[in-house]
């Protein structure tokens, strides 16, 4: 009797020690992650002259809330935001639908050459984006698509191999019985897809929607290559333009970045649950 309590007490002590170590490690790691952001926040509230004060000043002497007003008045933050949304939302919706359709076909439908076609898709993943930059630019120039949103939107609407790969893994583990029952009831594959597969794939679709949104929202290189007219600029370009409009307006860039971070932060906070679930249920097998 007394020996079991002793054992319990040591396991409790070990557990507490274990927890303490975990918290210390996570806090150190968390600080590492947080410091650049704290500096971003602090710089966004600084006076221009105080940016490079040495030693680094974490809490500004004069808090310049005006920086936030300036970025909304002088830069076209709101226009940039709407432009970004106009580019990425249709692309995400159409692209995801297309990817899910293909993923369903690769996961569940039977047709000759299916696995070979899928391999082609996977192999295409191995081509690094840098290789494509110049030839793609020349092509879009020939299409007359430069200085428009088309190069940023239309390729994505045809689906992305990585997303198809991911969704296929998810759809594969959905039970065949549901589908077979629906087929016997007379639904064709499109009906099965719309009525059964699509609703069941919600966690995986949300996961991919967020990742695609995030990549599009933060993309800087793509818009930089293709867009010239300021009225077509995306949010990230508006942010970057502070370095040329004003000579290295760090305070404004940081204020703009803080504002730009908010929508994604809110989205991620809400979707976090789906996020892990979407990946966990996918059960990626090599």
């Amino acid at each position, binding site marked *: 009797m007394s020996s079991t309590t002793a054992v319990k007490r040591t396991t409790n002590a070990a557990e507490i020690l274990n927890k303490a170590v975990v918290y210390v490690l996570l806090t150190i790691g968390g600080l590492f992650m947080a410091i650049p952001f704290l500096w971003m926040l602090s710089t966004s509230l600084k006076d221009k002259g105080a940016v490079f004060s040495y030693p680094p000043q974490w809490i500004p002497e004069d808090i310049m809330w005006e920086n936030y007003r300036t970025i909304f008045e002088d830069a076209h933050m709101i226009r940039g935001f709407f432009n970004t949304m106009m580019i990425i939302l249709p692309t995400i919706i159409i692209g995801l639908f297309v990817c899910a359709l*293909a993923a369903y076909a690769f996961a569940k*439908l039977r047709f000759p050459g299916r696995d070979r076609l899928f391999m082609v898709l996977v192999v295409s993943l191995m081509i690094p984006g840098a290789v494509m930059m110049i030839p793609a630019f020349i*092509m879009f120039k020939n299409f007359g698509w430069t200085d428009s949103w088309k190069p940023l939107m239309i390729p994505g609407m045809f689906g992305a*191999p990585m997303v198809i790969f991911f969704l296929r893994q998810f759809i594969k583990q959905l039970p065949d019985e549901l589908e077979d029952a629906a087929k016997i009831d007379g639904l064709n594959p499109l009906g099965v897809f719309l009525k059964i597969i699509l609703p069941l794939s919600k966690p995986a679709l949300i996961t991919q929607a967020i990742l695609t949104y995030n990549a599009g929202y933060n993309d800087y290189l793509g818009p930089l290559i293709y867009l010239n007219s300021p009225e077509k600029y995306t949010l990230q370009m508006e942010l970057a333009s502070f370095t040329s409009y004003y000579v290295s307006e760090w305070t404004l860039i940081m204020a703009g970045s803080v504002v730009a971070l908010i929508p994604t932060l809110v989205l991620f906070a809400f979707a976090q649950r789906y996020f892990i679930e979407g990946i966990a249920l996918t059960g990626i097998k090599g």
Partner: protein
Amino acid sequence: MNAKPLTASGARTAKKKSLYASEKWWGYLFVAPPFIGLTVFLLYPLLTSLYYSFTIFDFSSPPQFVGTENYKRALFEDPLVWKTLWNTFYAALGVPIGMAVSLLIAILLNQNLKGKNLFRMLFFLPTICSIVAMTLIWQWIFNSDYGLLNYFLSLVGIEGPAWLTDETWAMPAMIFQGVWGGLGISIIMYLAALSNVPTSLYEAATMDGAGGWKKFVHITVPGISPITFFILVTSLIAAPPGLPALRAHDGRGPELLDDDDCVLSLYYGIRI
């Protein structure tokens, strides 16, 4: 000979077969869009660039065919090619480092903790922050005169190098920044994988008297190996387009960083 006895299961296979017959066309229809996309937006530019690689082309006058001249120059005459190749391998060191760190953090986060979501959010922050801001912040951190890193080092009496312009330190600095920025997604992937490892295995191992390390090696590692493989492959593919980051540090960096079109020519020379 061909007539099979019409059993119940035979009828079911027959019915299934007829279902599959029409499935074929649906299948091709469903996978068509990505293949149209691949042909137009990948294959076509790749083939044109293959053609351009045998020419001299300055975008204004029509391309001039020069045979394998460009390849000779890229492979044997341009001293930077081998350097960039080495740099690419060097930079890829960030991949295993990043994976090890994110696995460690995922294991820590996988326990029943208060404030788990806050930590998760913190590690995910760089993933969702604009690359423009991140690049500027790291420029400041690594700056030799007023940067944060050298300030911290000076507190313990070390005079830090000029991180981004010192040939020895530029690459480790870039790797560090890359690992920091890439943790978020891998941690989420690992968290998902860890939640898939059956807890009964751990319980059984505890009964058999296995310690933490043994459980990690014999249960956790095999259990998450598919995800490990997936992260490895995707990060190796994603590793070279750390390009925007290099580009943004451009002009301040030493030779090994400032020639990003050299990274391009490297791909043109070797991958195509």
